């Protein structure tokens, strides 16, 4: 066997109070697609940050060999020079700039002092062809969907002559079609000699695409599996990731007789003055007590907008139609009104508008309901710690203490903090937008279990999700949303992936 393209030896990386990587060794062969899997907080992102120089040489122990040579990267541009490109889950594109400007941002093609725009556009068109993205290079990023933006990111990486491409959960925010496209592209790149490391929690796609799979758990390498022979199954992966077997990820639930209607929306229309277009058209739906209702549909179909328009309309859409909460007609003019009426909404973008990253776990958990732990406007710090510890326990949030900043938590644990925040307002109706995005199987199972417990206690849940298996596994009823309309309603017994996709795309 010839020397691997990348070899990381005995990498150990510590943060105050956490050993994120404990003597990890990791090898990637030339020309393979190597998947990295593990629970939230296992250390996957940290390992990649060590590799790409985000954590500079000297802040970790161990050696990195790339192309047979020992590397001491001090920052990202060092690793880029060596031919390593990393694409983070949070896309790093400038929304107001065009596709070609974004592709060459930071390494503009010059002609003397000036940027050579003609050459830029020509080269941009070439790399866009390589990633099979059919858009006008002069289109603005903000006008593209997430899937296409992801491809632009890859184009950007390819424009830099990359040897090793690292993707940290690229498909977490993509729907099935876009994910499939992306995977095809990776295969194609592999045939053109690009080596690739892919981090993902979607085990099915991992098994589908990987040549080799490395499993991390608690900062240690558990095993490296050869996935080419088709022997690796999801069960095997899960077992290695979590250390125990989970046979049915969707917990069993006594489906009770559906209760009374707790939320109803009639002839609901919304117009977004900023975008200058109608975003919801004649939406009718209802939610009953003790029910989980799934909202399926493509990204951009208007599910999040629907949730926001109900939840106090923070984006100031022009609304018409009727909203009934527990039988009462309601008009919420601020999220506060909705919360006070017993409605909670947990956003799909936990870092963007869900959490306050610079604050700690306890402050985030109590944020939406500070009055409960305050007397006459003065916060009771003891009560706050007590509450935070309660949710840390019941949601099994992995953190050294509730005084840890949430930016230091792994994705899944951040999601649990969001959930904790909304459970603490003790809502009757909980709207969860992509509740398991970027979350590992173990944590998913925990979140499903919590949801099950909540509906059994009489809460009603709206679950917006782009993952069809999750919609089918958890919902009592499914609404399919397409271009701002309800395209159909299906009881879960009748729903299949095909039927849903059919409704969503027509």
């Amino acid at each position, binding site marked *: 066997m010839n020397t691997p393209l990348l070899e990381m030896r005995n990498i150990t990386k510590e943060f105050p109070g956490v050993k994120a990587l404990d003597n990890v060794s990791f090898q990637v062969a030339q020309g393979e697609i190597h998947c990295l899997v593990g629970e939230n907080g296992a250390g996957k992102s940290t390992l990649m940050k060590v590799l790409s120089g985000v954590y500079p040489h000297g802040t970790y122990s161990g050696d990195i060999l790339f192309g047979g040579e020992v590397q001491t990267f001090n920052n990202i541009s060092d690793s880029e020079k060596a031919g390593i490109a990393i694409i983070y889950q949070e896309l790093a594109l400038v929304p107001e700039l065009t596709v070609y400007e974004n592709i060459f941002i930071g390494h503009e093609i010059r002609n003397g002092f000036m940027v050579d725009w003609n050459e830029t556009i020509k080269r941009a068109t070439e790399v866009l062809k390589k990633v099979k993205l059919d858009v006008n290079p002069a289109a603005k990023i903000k006008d593209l969907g997430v899937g296409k933006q992801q491809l632009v990111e890859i184009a950007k990486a390819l424009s830099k002559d990359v040897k090793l491409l690292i993707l940290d959960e690229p498909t977490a925010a993509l729907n099935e079609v876009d994910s499939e496209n992306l995977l095809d592209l990776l295969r194609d790149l592999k045939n053109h000699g690009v080596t690739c490391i892919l981090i993902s929690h979607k085990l099915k796609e991992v098994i589908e695409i990987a040549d080799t799979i490395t499993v991390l758990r608690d900062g240690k390498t558990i095993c490296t599996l050869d996935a080419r022979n088709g022997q690796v199954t999801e069960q095997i992966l899960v077992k290695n990731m979590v250390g125990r077997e989970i046979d049915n990820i969707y917990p069993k639930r006594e489906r009770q007789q559906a209760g009374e209607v707790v939320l109803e929306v009639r002839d609901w229309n919304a117009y977004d003055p900023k975008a200058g277009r109608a975003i919801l058209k004649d939406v009718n739906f209802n939610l009953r007590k003790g029910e989980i209702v799934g909202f399926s549909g493509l990204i951009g179909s208007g599910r999040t907008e629907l949730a926001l328009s109900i939840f106090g309309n923070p984006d100031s859409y022009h609304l018409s139609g009727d909203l009934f909460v527990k039988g009462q007609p309601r008009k919420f003019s*601020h999220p*506060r009104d909705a919360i006070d009426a017993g409605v909670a909404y947990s956003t799909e973008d936990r870092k963007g*508008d869900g959490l*306050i990253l610079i604050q700690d776990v306890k402050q985030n958990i109590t944020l*939406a309901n500070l009055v409960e732990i305050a007397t006459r406007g*003065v*916060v009771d710090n003891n009560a706050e710690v007590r509450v935070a510890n309660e949710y840390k326990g019941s949601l099994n949030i992995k953190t050294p203490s509730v005084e840890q900043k949430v930016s230091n938590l792994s994705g899944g644990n951040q999601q649990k903090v969001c959930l904790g925040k909304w459970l603490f307002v003790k809502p009757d109706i909980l709207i969860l937008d992509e509740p398991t995005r970027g979350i590992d199987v173990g944590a998913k199972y925990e979140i499903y279990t919590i949801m099950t417990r909540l509906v059994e206690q009489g809460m009603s849940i709206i679950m917006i999700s782009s993952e069809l298996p999750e919609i089918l596994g958890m919902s009592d009823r499914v609404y399919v949303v397409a271009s701002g309309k309800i395209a159909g309603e299906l009881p879960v017994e009748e729903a299949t992936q095909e039927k849903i996709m059919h409704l969503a795309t027509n």
Partner: protein
Amino acid sequence: MSFFNNAKNVLQQNIREYGMYIALFVIMIIFTITTSGTFLSSRNIVNLVNQTGYIAVLAVGMTLVIIIRHIDLSVGFLAGFMGAIAAIALVYWGLPVYAVIPMVLALGAFAGLITAFLVAQMKIPSFVASLAGWLIYRGAILVVTEGTGTIIIPDEAFNAIGNGFIPDIPGLDAFLPGVHKLTLVLGVLAIAALVWGELSNRQKKQSYGFEVLPIDMFIVKLVFMSVLIGAITWVLAGYQGLSWTAVVVLIVTLIYNFVMSQTVLGRHIYAIGGNPDAAELSGINVNRLIYVVFGSMGMLSALSGILFASRLQSATTTAGNLFELDAIAATYVGGVSAAGGVGKVVGSIIGALVMTSLTSGMNLMGIGISYQYMVRGTVLAAAVIFDVTTRNRGK
């Protein structure tokens, strides 16, 4: 050995918080040496405190404004304008002090609400909205002082705010003559409150298993702070005692510090600064708090104007010039983050002290005003560079 290790660790981990105290300390030592002791004389310290007063109250308000990711450039001339209104009300309208002060404070708050309206409702960037205010209030000062020029304020009660001292406990003249007893008593009470507060806080944290300072470092910190308060008290008591300006600043600081660290309102303000979208979706009415914060800023501008007019015993046509920049500089020196969501009221007060110490020290040394500006600019840049680099290291 472990003592020094502890000290090193604690300093490294908290360098941002302690940095400005150390800076203040160093500046004071340098000036004490270069002015052969004059800088630390009772008289100069009292002067320093009174000079800091009108910037300090602005810096307190500005802390909140910057925490919610805004800025208010209008506060300097608003202060000047409010000072002029106060003078006019006292001198020409013949209103009594106790009516003038609340009236001017209310007017200031109202002016702040106008800026807030532009920012919250009209969605104008606060930089622009308050720049407009800067121009308007500057013009307004000129308009109201047009006929008269500088307005001399003869009212003694009013002028005492910027120049007077708190009375002493009556009937104790024989005991410790030449020392201001009430100031001493207050100083001792302050130290007691500090020690008690720190101790109970530490106990609470320990009972939750949170990280606390190692016990030796904790004692060092307590001793250091007690000695500091004690020394200041002693210096002040040896002169004429606590000035009214100092009392005003202390009260403002205590109130704002309490609000920001202990109340729901304060938490909401920090939350908005940390992530306005998340705050809004968590049921916090961001617009309403913009009104609160800018309104409070306007009120504190008026207070600053009162302190300044009272100190000069007059309202001048240039009052308030560059106050806003001094206040903003003070907050940055005091560790408020330009990115929002981070900062403490007490830090800004220390920042204001650093900036006035520089001016005062350089004045005593006879350094020209042109070089003074340059030095202050350099210190501001250094403070922010320090802040940014230590913040990154913490990550």
